[in-house]
């Protein structure tokens, strides 16, 4: 312990690395022995003393027997100990001190120590006091151990409270420096693979030194810490100047004023290297037991702090990953909801672009193949300028062979690149740094692409790529559904348009007003129909009817009825034969013909000589036509059965004349069967009484009816179509 060895000392690792173990504490205070000194005479001449005494007072190298105590230890007088010695010598009464604090050593080398001691009188044979004997036990280490324990507890509390690692390590370093004046502490942290040490805490070392040491490799002979980390064993260098481990770092140490370095590795409970705990001194020094014990205790504590910190970081990273996964899921769920909410095909694709921006990327474009050409159908960007630039990117560019969209359309495989797309485009203005182009594929056919572009403010990570592929998949499904719906709705609208008269033609001596209100929307096509067409003999045919059922099949049936009637009217002489022809057409087997039951009123009208209209009509299972006159409403109750069931239905022809301003009203049962809030049906009676009460000129008559129906139902949608046709004989003057 006296000399400074040239070779670094390798000492066994501390026995425990968790709490300060009993071994370390024993090392701290158990080894101290009694100090004994005998003094003679009134000047307290030191007659004899044991080695422990000299060690304790720090005058090991001068065994100064024969000197008065206050010459040997000048520091004692000022602290009152010499006065105590005088008193004991004078009175013969012993004195006992407990945990008495004394500053020992010369002015520049003072150490604080604590003693339990006794001054007892020495007597000669006669009982006269000849001197004073001092017997003491140094309690400094106990005190230090107590303080150490207290410091240690504070540190453990800090660790438990999850104070930031830096704080804990710095607090620890400072506490040790206070416990051992003259010592400078540094804690280095190992990186994950254990190959390098990084600055942890070193409150008293100069920054240039800490910066230079930061990142040193762990390895044999890389300074004390590097070697200790590598060997996972304590390494002591008592004299840096002469030590081979410090090759290359000697100047650095000299500049920092460091002459000795003892390093203890900090190991995790699984033996993993967490860092090193180093004690530096400004003069060459070798550690004593107390120093080593201290190092052991604090290395263990530091290990706890670091482990706790690493566990906390791992937990936070796992939580972040989980949150990211939850966020992804939330994004996808929202995306799916948003995509499916809209059944319009082009809106679904626009929605895709806006969903991806800015959540996944600052720029997004959606392209689809439409009749052999690629078309940009949606664009999203974070600024208006970028939006216009991207939207204006010509689709002709897709003819270039080196184009991501073309490739992805062909392969159906996502393409990712960390550079702007190669083909022409506003990539520089948009500051594009990379892209992801994902296919929109449905039933094995890639019908479009969604392209995300990153700019120099943003970048993709791999999970964004996965997300965009997932969203693309969901969009493809939603778009397919939307397209089918749109197509069917378009078909339905076309069918509907084909079924109904766009305009009522100009009629001689007659006026026709119609009302049509199908019950369903979009896909549902009504089963009600009407038609007016000219006959060869100058007269006109009119009809209104109802197919039992709805949907596309009902639509084909209504088309069949109308077209058959129009076709055969040129060849058949009267309404009844035409209606029978329609019936035969209905009975012929058709493809997916579910039901072809049709009720119908079919008639011919011709201007009557002298004004008015002559009408022949056939009612086949339909609601009774109403003859509206100024004096009332007459129900035309002619017999006739529903069509499409039997080959030869019973039918009769009714004849009537409409005088000028009289009307014939045909309507479907959607009007009379509609219900109010209480469930009551509108009914034929209500219709007739309504028409009788209010004498209106047509076409106001129809408005009257439809208004009443609307009021009756409270505007609620009905389940059946409504149609009406009002044929009015006009006066000559109109």
């Amino acid at each position, binding site marked *: 312990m006296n000399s400074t060895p040239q070779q670094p000392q390798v000492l066994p690792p501390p026995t425990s690395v968790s709490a300060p173990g009993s071994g370390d504490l024993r090392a701290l205070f158990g080894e101290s022995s009694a100090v004994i000194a005998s003094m003679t005479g009134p000047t307290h001449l030191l007659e004899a003393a044991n080695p422990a005494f000299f060690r304790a007072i720090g005058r090991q190298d001068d065994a100064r027997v024969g000197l008065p105590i206050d010459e040997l230890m000048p520091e004692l007088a000022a602290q009152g100990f010499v006065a105590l010695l005088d008193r004991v010598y004078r009175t013969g009464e012993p004195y006992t001190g407990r945990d008495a604090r004394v500053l020992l050593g010369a002015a520049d080398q003072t150490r604080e120590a604590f003693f339990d001691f006794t001054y007892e009188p020495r007597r000669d044979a006669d009982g006269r006091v000849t001197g004073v004997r001092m017997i003491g036990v140094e309690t400094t280490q106990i005190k230090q151990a107590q303080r150490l324990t207290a410091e240690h507890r504070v540190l453990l509390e800090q660790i438990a409270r999850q104070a930031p690692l830096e704080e804990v390590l710095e607090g620890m370093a400072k506490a040790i420096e206070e416990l051992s004046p003259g010592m400078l502490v540094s804690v280095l942290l190992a990186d994950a693979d254990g190959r390098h040490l990084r600055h942890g805490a070193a409150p008293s070392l100069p920054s240039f030194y800490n910066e230079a040491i930061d990142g040193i490799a762990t390895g044999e002979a890389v300074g004390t810490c590097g070697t200790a980390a590598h060997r996972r064993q304590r390494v002591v260098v008592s004299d840096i100047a002469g030590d081979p481990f410090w090759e290359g770092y000697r100047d650095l140490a000299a500049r920092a004023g460091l002459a000795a370095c003892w390093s203890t590795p900090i190991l995790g409970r699984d033996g993993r290297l967490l860092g090193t705990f180093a004690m530096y001194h400004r003069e060459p020094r070798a550690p004593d037991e107390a120093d080593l014990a201290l190092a052991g205790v604090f290395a263990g504590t530091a290990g706890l702090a670091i482990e706790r910190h690493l566990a906390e970081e791992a937990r936070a990273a796992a939580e972040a990953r989980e949150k990211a996964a939850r966020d992804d899921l939330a994004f996808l769920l929202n995306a799916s909801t948003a995509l499916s909410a809209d059944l319009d095909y082009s809106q679904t694709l626009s929605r895709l672009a806006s969903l991806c921006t800015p959540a996944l990327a600052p720029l997004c474009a959606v392209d689809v193949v439409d009749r052999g050409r690629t078309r940009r159908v949606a664009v999203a960007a974070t600024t208006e300028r970028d939006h216009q630039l991207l939207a204006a990117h010509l689709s002709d560019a897709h003819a270039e062979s080196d184009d991501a969209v073309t490739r992805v359309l062909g392969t159906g495989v996502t393409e990712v690149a960390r550079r702007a797309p190669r083909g022409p485009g506003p990539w520089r203005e948009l500051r594009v740094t990379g892209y992801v182009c994902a296919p929109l594929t449905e039933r094995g056919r890639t019908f479009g692409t969604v392209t995300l572009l990153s700019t120099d403010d943003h970048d993709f990570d791999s999970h964004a790529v996965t997300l965009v592929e997932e969203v693309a998949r969901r969009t493809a499904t939603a778009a397919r559904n939307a397209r089918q719906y749109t197509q069917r709705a378009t078909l339905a609208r076309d069918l509907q348009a084909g079924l109904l008269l766009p305009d009522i033609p100009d009629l001689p001596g007659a006026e026709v007003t119609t009302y049509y209100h199908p019950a369903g929307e979009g896909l549902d096509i009504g089963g009600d129909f009407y038609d007016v067409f000219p006959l060869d003999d100058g007269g006109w045919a009119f009809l209104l009817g109802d197919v039992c059922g709805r949907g596309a099949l009902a639509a084909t049936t209504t088309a069949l009825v109308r077209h058959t009637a129009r076709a055969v009217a040129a060849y058949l002489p009267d309404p009844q034969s035409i209606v029978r022809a329609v019936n035969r057409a209905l009975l012929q087997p058709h493809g997916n013909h579910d039901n072809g039951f049709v*009720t119908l009123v079919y008639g011919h009208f011709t201007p009557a000589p002298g004004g008015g209209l002559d009408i022949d009509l056939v009612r086949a299972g339909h609601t009774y036509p109403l003859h509206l006159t100024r004096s009332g409403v007459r129900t035309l109750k002619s017999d006739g059965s529903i069509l499409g*069931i*039997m080959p030869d*239905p019973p039918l009769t022809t009714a004849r009537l004349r409409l005088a000028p301003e009289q009307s014939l009203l045909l309507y479907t049962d959607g009007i009379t069967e509609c219900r109010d809030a209480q*469930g009551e049906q509108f009914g034929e009676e209500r219709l007739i009484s309504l028409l009788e009460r209010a004498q209106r000129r047509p076409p106001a008559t129809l408005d009257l009816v439809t208004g009443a129906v609307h009021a009756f139902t409270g505007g609620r949608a009905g389940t059946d179509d409504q149609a009406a046709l009002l044929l009015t004989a006009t006066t000559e003057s109109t």
Partner: protein
Amino acid sequence: MAEEPVTGAEGALHVPLSVDVSIVDDITVVSPAGEIDYSSGSRLREALTVAEDRPPRVVLDLSHVAFMDSNGITILLLTHKALGEAGGWLRIAGCTSPVARVVQLVGLDTVIPCFPCRQDALGA
């Protein structure tokens, strides 16, 4: 047998339809009670579906039906067609006056045999 009135899909109050099915002399007798319209029609249609365990000869007893609209007409016509294709027939019995009215309007009685009561329909 009639259930509590409920508010139907249109918010309308109507008496739900209950349908009794029994087999008499190798003839299926279907007896609905209540109103036959858009909302209750499916229940009647179910009862009239051609089934393995029921003879395709059906007497539909309408004496407890207070109301039937064009939806019911469609159901009856479809049933008439289906039973005919299955080698059976449909007969209607006991039309109450509102039902008789719509039956005559459509001329259903010229398509499907109608009888004043169940017994007559079974015996014919």
